[in-house]
């Protein structure tokens, strides 16, 4: 029995529920050449009660470069 952290309404405390009572959805929400965002959600009666994100950064999104610079 796995317990999942859930929030049943926006103003309620975070509690735990047995995973077997929830609908699990896993998907890749977005993937670029810089990152991939994988989501794990649990739903109860059509309500989102748990949402986690695993963002895998593939490489630096920017580089401080001087390769093409020249002294002027």
């Amino acid at each position, binding site marked *: 029995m796995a317990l999942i*952290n*859930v*929030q049943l309404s926006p103003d309620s*405390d*975070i509690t735990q529920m047995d995973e077997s009572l929830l609908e699990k959805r896993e998907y890749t*929400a*977005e993937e670029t050449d810089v*990152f991939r*965002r994988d*989501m*794990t959600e649990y739903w109860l009666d059509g309500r*989102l*009660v*748990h*949402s*986690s*994100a*695993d*963002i*895998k*950064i*593939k*490489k*630096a*999104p920017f*580089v*401080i*470069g*001087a*390769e093409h*610079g*020249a*002294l002027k």
Partner: protein
Amino acid sequence: MANTQGIGYQWKLECLTSAGGNLNSTSLKAAVYLASATTGPSNASYTSTGEASGTNYTAGGVAVTGGTAALDGSVAHYTPGASITFTNVTFSSAVDAIMIYDDTHASDRNVGVFTFGSTTITAGNLTLTMPTDNGTTGLIRLN
């Protein structure tokens, strides 16, 4: 034989490791920002403006596990030593960025802002897994 222009490799490394911004010895933190915020590289320092709020999230964010700045050929690079995780949080609104900043010096200098797309977190974890730390993929690179 011709001369070759370019920034000195060792100087690039020392940009990452010199006093005032030594990534090898500075404590870093990561703060989360709302998707509606306008945080970016123009922010000189950590700011609470636009920062996420919600259950189990503390303003200022979490500590970042340090890495080691190094040279890979001509490229100086630095990547935190472990994933950055916000555990069992609910953010009040969607988030899409973190700022990594210097928590050692009073300046709270902004090291970098990294975006990842609008994301809703409810009673869950927000985990950012770092790239391989080298001159090709490292999180901070001076090319």
